C-alpha cells in the first residue's frame, strides 16, 4: 500500500461520507446516515492500516500523514456530534473539511519513507500525535459550528442549544489537547532532557491551549455573549492551525525540532 493508491480509497470514502451527509437530510432515522459514514470510515481506515503495515512504522511522521488522520477523525467527530445533537448539517460540514485535506494530500503528496529517526522511536509517539489529530478534528467541528452561528446569527432558532454544543465539543477537544500536550512534555523529558523548552511548536501549543482556556472561562458567566464566544473559538482555531503547520513557515521556527520533513 502506498500513496499512489490513496486517491482510490479517498474517492470511495468521500462518496460514502457525502451519501451519509445527504441521507441526514432525507431520513429522520439516523441509522442510515450513520452506517454510510461508518462505511466511509472503514474504507479510509483500511488505507491507513495498509500504509502503516507497508511503511513498517506508524504513519504519523510527515505533514501528509497527519493530514490523513485528520481527514479520518473529522467524520468521526461529525458523526458523534450528529448522533448526540441531531444537527443534520454537521455531517456535510465535516465531509467538506475532510475533502479539503484529502485534496491537499493528493496534490502535494508525501515522500514514501520507512525511516524513523531515533528520537521518534518511542511509545509516546503514536498516542501523542493521534490524540492531537483527534482533538483537532473535534475542535474543527466546534469551529464549523461557530462559523455557522456567525453566518446565520439572526435565523437560528435555538442559539442556546448551539452554544451548549460548542461547549461540549470544546471541553472534549481541550481535554484531548491537554492530554496531548502533557504526553508531549513527559516524552520530551525522556528524549530531550526537559519537559518544556519553549520550542516554537510547544509555544504555539501553549498559545492554542490558552485560547481555549479563554473560551471555557468566558463561557462560565451567564452574561457571556454568544457572538463573542464564537469569535473566541475562531481565533483559538487560528492559533491551532499555526501550531499544527503554521510553525513550519514562521521564520522564528526554522530551528525547531518539531519541523516536519
Amino acid at each position: 500500500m502506498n500513496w499512489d493508491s490513496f486517491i482510490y480509497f479517498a474517492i470511495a470514502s468521500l462518496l460514502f461520507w457525502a451519501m451519509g451527509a445527504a441521507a441526514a437530510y432525507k431520513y429522520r432515522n439516523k441509522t442510515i446516515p450513520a452506517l454510510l459514514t461508518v462505511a466511509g470510515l472503514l474504507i479510509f481506515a483500511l488505507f491507513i492500516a495498509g500504509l502503516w503495515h507497508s511503511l513498517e512504522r506508524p504513519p504519523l511522521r510527515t505533514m501528509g500523514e497527519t493530514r490523513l488522520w485528520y481527514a479520518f477523525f473529522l467524520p468521526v467527530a461529525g458523526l458523534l456530534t450528529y448522533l448526540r445533537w441531531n444537527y443534520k448539517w454537521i455531517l456535510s460540514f465535516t465531509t467538506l473539511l475532510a475533502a479539503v485535506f484529502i485534496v491537499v494530500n493528493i496534490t502535494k503528496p508525501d515522500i514514501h519513507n520507512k525511516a524513523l529517526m531515533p528520537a521518534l522511536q518511542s511509545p509516546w509517539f503514536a498516542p501523542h500525535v493521534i490524540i492531537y489529530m483527534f482533538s483537532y478534528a473535534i475542535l474543527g467541528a466546534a469551529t464549523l459550528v461557530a462559523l455557522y452561528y456567525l453566518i446565520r446569527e439572526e435565523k437560528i432558532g435555538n442559539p442556546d442549544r448551539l452554544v451548549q454544543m460548542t461547549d461540549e465539543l470544546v471541553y472534549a477537544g481541550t481535554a484531548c489537547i491537554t492530554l496531548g500536550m502533557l504526553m508531549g512534555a513527559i516524552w520530551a523529558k525522556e528524549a530531550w532532557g526537559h519537559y518544556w523548552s519553549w520550542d516554537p511548536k510547544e509555544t504555539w501549543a501553549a498559545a492554542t491551549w490558552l485560547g481555549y482556556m479563554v473560551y471555557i472561562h468566558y463561557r462560565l458567566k451567564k452574561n457571556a455573549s454568544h457572538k463573542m464566544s464564537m469569535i473566541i473559538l475562531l481565533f483559538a482555531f487560528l492559533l491551532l492551525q499555526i501550531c499544527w503547520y503554521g510553525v513550519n513557515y514562521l521564520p522564528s521556527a526554522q530551528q525547531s525540532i518539531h519541523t516536519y520533513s
Partner: protein
Amino acid sequence: MAGKGQSKQPVGQSEMRIWEHPWGYREGFIVAAGIAFSGLLLQLTVGNIQPALFASPVNSIFGALFVTGLTAVHFLLPKNRTVRWLGGVYAAVPAIAVLLLLCIILGLIPQFPHNSSNEQLPPTLFTPLGWYRMTTSWPFVLLCFYILFILGLTTLKRTGQKQSWRDIGFYLNHLGLFLALGGGLLGSADLERLTMSVNEGEIAWRATNQSGEIKELSLAIQLDTFLIEEYPPRLVIIENETGRILPATRPDSYQFEEVGKTVQIAGVTMEILDYLPHAALFRDSTFLNVVPMMMEGATTAIKVRVNNAEDNQPVEGWVSNGSYLFPHSTLQVSGNRSIAMPPQEIKRYRSYVTLYTEKGTARQAIIEVNRPLPVEDWIIYQYSYDDTKGKYADSSVFELVRDPWLKVVYTGICMLMAGALFLFVAGPKKKADEKDK
C-alpha cells in the same frame, strides 16, 4: 447567596464607574495590563531575570512565602471584594488573555539563549522590551505569578463552597496547574544541564555547562562501546549538474531489499545485481574496483545494471555512499542523470557504559535516545555523537540533567492529566445543574 461565594455579576459595565465594585472584565484587563507594564518598567531598568539569582534556597523561600501569602489573604480577608474578585472569572479571563498575547509574541519573534549577552541580540526596538528572551523577561514572569496567585485563590475559594463531584475535576485542574506552572518557574533556577563527550574506551568525569564552564562531577562515565545501526541504503536519481534528487517536486528513492530485483526510480529502470554491506573502493584513472572488505571504514555498495538513455546500451556499475575512508561513487545513466546512494539514515545509536560513583559503586548500563539513565540526582541522556566517522563513530556525547523540582512538576502534570480526563467525561455543566445551585 453571598455564602455561595459567587460574586454578583456587574449590571452592565457601561453603567458602572470604573473601580466601583463589583469589578468586571474592564478592571481585569487594567490589572493584568498593569502587571505586564510594571514588568516592562523593571525590564527596562534591570534587564532580564538572571535565573542563577533565584537558585536554591531563594526559590524555595519565595515559593513558601508565596503560598503563605496566598493562604493568609484568603483566610484573613474573606469578605474583601477585591480578593473575591481575584479568585474569579473576571480576573482570570483577562490574565489568561494577556499571557496569550505574550505567548503569541514569543511564538513570532525568534528567541535567543538566556545567557546571550546584549551585543548578541538584534539592535531593534524589541531588545529592551525583552522580547528576544521572553521567558526570562519580567513582564512574562510577573504575569505568570499573577496567574499563579489567581489559581491559588480560586482553589482556596472553592473549598468554602458546598462541594459536589464536579469539584474533583476543578481541584485537579487548578491545583495541578498551580503545581506544574509554579514548580516549573521556580525550579528553572535550579535546573542544570551539562554535556559530556567520551571516546570509546575512555572515562570522563568532567562536563560542560551551557556557558562553557567545566564542572567536576561525583560520578564518572566510561564508554565501553558505542553502537550505531543504519537503515538499509537507498538509491536515488540525481541531476548531474546540481546533485538534486529527482523528481524535484517529489524526490523518489528505493530502499534496498534484496539482490535480483528490478526497480524504477524517477522514470529510470534498473536491475539490482549485487550488494556488499562492507566494501572497499579502489579507483585508478580508468577503473573502479569494488571488493568486499570487512574493515573499519568499509562502505556500502550496490551494483546495478541500467540502459543508458542516449544509446540504449546496457551499462553496469557500482553505486556507493562512501565513508570516511572511501569516496562515494555514482553511475551515469545519461548526460544529465546518475544513480547515486545518499548517506544512510540512522536507525538507532546507543552507548554501553560503566558508571563509577564517588561512593565506590560501579555498574554497567546502556544509554539510548528515549531511554535515559538516572544516576543519583542526575539523569544521563544520549545526546548525540561525533559523526565524522559516520557509522564507525566512536565518540559519544551525553547530556546530564539535574532537576530538583521535577517531582513537584510531575505531580502537577499527573493532576492535570486526571483533570483532563474528568473534563472529557464530565463535560460542561448542563443547564439542569444550574437550576440546583
